[in-house]
């Protein structure tokens, strides 16, 4: 009894430190922003409710955001799951190439991605031009509105599937599949009764993320939504930049936030009903399944390669356009004179041009790692402790999902623009750390949610066994737990790193003027006052970002590290051989 009650001092210190960090940097800025926005002269201001709900545009945009979120939950889950099944589970010809093309959604996003789709399907796009040859009467501007937004976002938001569902499917114990086969189960039965249940925790996590992506949709509705399908987030961002309209922005954000809370609550209830965890200690590696039914097999191949085309066309065009002049990009008419290397020459006009890359890489990497470490710690606090109070860590970590990053940044500048006793009377605004803190904060909920899902794969028995043999907490963590969750953690780190590299919304408020990150430089290059040549630069920057992101993926996913290790090994062997 007594032994159980003993409190470990380092554990307690860590807990207090994390709790302080969450209160000071996550909860306090958000709460103080909300209070300052809604609390006027000793009363909650209610005028904003009337303002918002009497605006037909705001109500319609809100509605559209929810329609989009629910649609995407279905479509992204279908397409994303197919991506993983085509490349990892079923035996499809050319799976390696397919995988590379499906992974393109991991390396670019935002305005340029949507622009890429527009260059295929838009008024002057490739496909439209082709279709016009056959159907001269069709409307060249057909790719607009709800359908277009859903299409673009369905294919561009599958990155979570390609990362986490892929990891989960590789965690499947093939013995179970074989056993089912031996018992005479058909392919469909195996798929729905064995494979899907194991993937359930991951599906839950991804579904939440997809829903949030839909609610927060920005570039796709702005560019291809047309007048009939605009969503609420662009309005929130615009309003949050003006001190006067901040109330409206915060109110709209709170509506989305409440929807998010409800969704999270529903999901954690459903999750409680049980998850299937593989209990095998010696898992067998997954073997790809051949589709027996020839008709289905052909259909699967056609679908897989059609998706290949959908994924590849926009990215190829972006790479080509990064070598083109402005008129070519806007009209889509290629001439021999269209191509130029000038865009790339401008990229490195001086040594100074490299600096933003280094700044962004340092910040993004630091924040991605910190967010992962804090998330792992918090997951352990919540899972391992009997005390219900520890659940507060989970709520704390998830707070940033309630507000868009612009408002979080504002909250931080308002909270720490002056000396504050909560952080020992320091001023954070204008220092270099505030951006790092901001980056960590906005990536916490995602990291926490995905790492929590990964923890379901950790077998409690292994941990107990380690403890019985006398391993300490840290040792067990390092040798038993981390290896199991590492693939998921690495995926989280890479996705966070890639996402932060060119962030603008949060960065704009928090960066130190002498350490300009990439997002700021890119925005300046495509500013309305920039020359039209500069607008071509957004393509060049995207290509460079794609390369950076691919490098991160290559190393993070292990194959890069392995190659280097093998090369080192060979060199070592050569040396020994010579001697």
């Amino acid at each position, binding site marked *: 009894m007594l032994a159980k009650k003993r409190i470990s001092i380092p554990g307690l210190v860590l807990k207090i430190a994390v709790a302080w960090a969450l209160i000071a940097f996550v909860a306090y800025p958000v709460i103080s922003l909300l209070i300052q926005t809604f609390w006027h002269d000793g009363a909650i201001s209610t005028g904003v409710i009337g303002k918002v709900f009497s605006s037909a545009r705001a109500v319609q945009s809100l509605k559209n955001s929810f329609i989009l979120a629910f649609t995407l939950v279905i479509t992204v889950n279908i397409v994303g799951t197919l991506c993983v099944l085509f490349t990892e589970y079923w035996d499809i010809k050319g799976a390696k190439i397919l995988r590379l093309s499906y992974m393109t959604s991991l390396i670019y996003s935002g305005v340029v991605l949507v622009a890429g789709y527009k260059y295929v399907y838009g008024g002057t796009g490739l496909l439209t031009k082709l279709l016009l040859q056959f159907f001269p009467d069709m409307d060249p501007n057909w790719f607009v509105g709800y359908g277009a937004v859903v299409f673009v976002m369905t294919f561009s938001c599958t990155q979570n599937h390609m990362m986490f569902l892929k990891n989960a499917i590789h965690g499947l114990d093939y013995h179970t599949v074989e056993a089912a086969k031996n018992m005479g189960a058909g392919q469909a039965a195996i798929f729905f009764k064995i494979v899907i249940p194991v993937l359930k925790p991951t599906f839950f996590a991804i579904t939440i993320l997809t829903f949030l992506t839909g609610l927060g949709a920005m570039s796709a509705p702005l560019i291809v939504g*047309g007048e009939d399908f605009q969503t609420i987030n662009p309005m929130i961002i615009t309003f949050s930049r003006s001190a006067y309209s901040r109330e409206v922005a915060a109110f709209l954000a709170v509506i989305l936030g409440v929807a998010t809370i409800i969704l999270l609550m529903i999901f954690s209830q459903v999750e409680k009903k049980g998850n299937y965890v593989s209990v095998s200690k010696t898992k067998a590696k997954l073997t790809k399944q051949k589709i027996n039914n020839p008709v289905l097999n052909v259909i699967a191949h056609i679908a897989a390669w059609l998706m290949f085309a959908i994924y590849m066309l926009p990215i190829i065009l972006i790479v080509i356009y990064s070598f083109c002049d402005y008129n070519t990009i806007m009209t889509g008419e290629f001439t021999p004179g269209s191509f130029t290397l000038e865009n790339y020459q401008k990229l490195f006009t001086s040594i100074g041009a490299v600096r933003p890359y280094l700044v962004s890489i340092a910040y993004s990497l630091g924040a991605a790692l910190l967010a992962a470490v804090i998330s792992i710690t918090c997951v352990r606090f919540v899972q391992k402790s009997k005390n219900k109070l520890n659940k507060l860590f989970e709520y704390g970590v998830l707070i940033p999902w309630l507000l868009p990053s612009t408002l979080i940044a504002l909250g931080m500048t308002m909270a720490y623009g002056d000396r504050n006793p909560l952080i020992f009377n320091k001023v954070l605004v204008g220092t270099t750390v505030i951006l*790092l803190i901001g980056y960590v904060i906005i990536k916490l909920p995602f990291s926490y949610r995905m790492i929590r899902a990964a923890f379901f794969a950790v077998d409690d028995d292994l941990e107990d066994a380690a403890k019985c043999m006398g391993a300490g907490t840290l040792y067990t963590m390092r040798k038993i737990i981390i290896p199991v969750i590492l693939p998921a953690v690495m995926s989280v780190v890479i996705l966070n790193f890639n996402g932060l590299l060119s962030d603008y919304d949060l960065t704009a*408020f928090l960066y130190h003027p002498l350490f300009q990150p990439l997002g700021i430089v890119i925005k300046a290059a495509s500013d309305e006052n920039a020359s039209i040549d500069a607008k071509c630069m957004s393509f060049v920057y995207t290509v460079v970002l794609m390369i950076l992101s691919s490098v991160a993926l290559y190393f993070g996913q292990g194959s890069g590290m392995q190659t280097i290790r093998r090369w080192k090994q060979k060199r070592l062997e050569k040396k020994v051989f010579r001697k």
Partner: protein
Amino acid sequence: MKTRRLGALGLCLAVTLSMAACGSGNSDNNSGKGGDSQLIVYTNSGSDGRDAWLEERASEAGFNITVVQIAAGDLANRIVSEKNNAQADLVFGLNNVEYEKLKAEDTMEKWEPEWKDEVDMSLGDPDGYYYPIVIQPLVNIMNKDLKNPPKDYTDLLSDEWTDKYTILGFGGGTGKTLLAGFLVRYTDPDGELGISDEGWDTIKQWIQNGHMEADGEDYVGAVIDGSRPICEMWGSGVLQNEAERNTEFQIMSPEVGVPYVTEQIAILKGRNNTEKAIEFANWFGSSELQTEWMNKFGTVPCNENAFEQASEDIKEFVGSVHQQDIDWAFVAENLDAWVEKVELEFVQ
């Protein structure tokens, strides 16, 4: 193998953390002092190579400066939020409305430039916080072959021009200021937000009869090919687009004039480099440097001695329009509320 990977992770983390720590340490030392007479200059007008050019030119003149380009919408916000830990010595660019906000937040020093008599001080601040540098007339450009072009905003409300003109987004400086310029024609102290019912009705028709800029669309291209032949444009953008796209535009010149946005220069509070900063501002606003700035980047200088040396197309463009009489204090007080109302109620 796993441990090593973990070790690497830990190392990276340590490095980043210590970097961040060092960084913050440095800036702590600098805060409120300004360091070794290096000047940090904030501007929204540093894109397109202007920042690099200015840094180089300033170092020839003996100034050690770093120009930090910040998007217009964020620049004033940033200066206000850094009030207690100022990071910059000067700011140039922006416009009167934004400077009025900065004045209200007590972020600027009072000063007086040597070239005060060479500029039209009606463009600047009567209280002596900010001084005019560059003028941007905001206009509507039209396709050069457009027949029977509209002469004023009010002409655009007819069916003839439905969906024929692009209105720039009200988040950006140009769209916002042109909206203000249109609204102040209907000033009415008893009206909603200081504007008469007739005014709101006109604005509503103007917005709903036109086309709001969508992200990533080529609205200047639409003017050139005639598919949407009218579009709002800022002054240097007119000349720049004419040159880069090898075309000419007609300029709409309403009788009441067009809004002139004036980029200004000001000294920020909370640094102890004020002397040096004023010295730099004296140099930067001088007719010699403003002439170079104009010749290099096609700006319209406020400095009269510099403007005399302007090229023919700049003079022709400036001559084709005249300044609308606008009470900027009134605009500054109401603009955000106007934009909010218009965004919520009129934009579709």
